[in-house]
């Protein structure tokens, strides 16, 4: 079965650089969630999209932005990177609308800031 695809798997950047993370949801899933998991931490919700519109926002820095495209893939854009941005970034997709469908996670992108 198709799963959530995230790219790249690993990304190394320096301070003040920019990064773009990509997420391709499971086909027919209409909702995408982004989570940030710092070292030894639990995943924290950043932002979500439903039918290509931003639907909820969590603890996402102003330096980050995201969007969902017409093909439902999503991109998380990160600028002025800081050491504290080093983390595992997960994308998850689901069918929304009050169903009990769980969120399916991608394998994550490991972002390291030097």
């Amino acid at each position, binding site marked *: 079965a198709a799963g959530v695809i995230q790219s790249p798997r690993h990304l190394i950047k320096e301070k003040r650089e920019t990064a773009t993370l990509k997420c391709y949801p499971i086909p027919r899933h209409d*909702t995408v*969630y982004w989570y940030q998991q710092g070292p030894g931490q*639990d995943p924290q919700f950043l932002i979500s999209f439903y039918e290509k519109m*931003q*639907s*909820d926002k969590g603890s996402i820095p102003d330096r980050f932005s995201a969007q969902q495209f017409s093909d439902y893939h999503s991109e998380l854009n990160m600028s002025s990177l800081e050491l504290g941005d080093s983390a*595992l970034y997960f994308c998850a997709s689901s069918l929304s609308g009050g169903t009990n469908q769980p969120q399916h*996670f991608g394998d994550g992108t490991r972002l390291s800031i030097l």
Partner: protein
Amino acid sequence: AQTVTQSQPEMSVQEAETVTLSCTYDTSESDYYLFWYKQPPSRQMILVIRQEAYKQQNATENRFSVNFQKAAKSFSLKISDSQLGDAAMYFCAYRSLHGVGGSEKLVFGKGTKLTVNP
């Protein structure tokens, strides 16, 4: 806002034995979902089991079962016949039931690291 608490940072179990991981949560909602996710060293987030709060029957998935106590806001995970492959970080998570599209984010606990000893 909802919160999820896992009071056991680390647990260990002997292979083939049973272990229970604790989770409590706080919410003012009456309907919601609860989940246990497993994160092995490979770092994937794997759904282990889920429970709908409106269902009184505890969920079971093979060797994994939950003890859901709604009044006590408790949601523990029992792993029977533990296997070496069960070693991982386990996260308890909460999700609202009646959120509109895209607002059904997961709220995670801090996790419990499970070690399985041969």
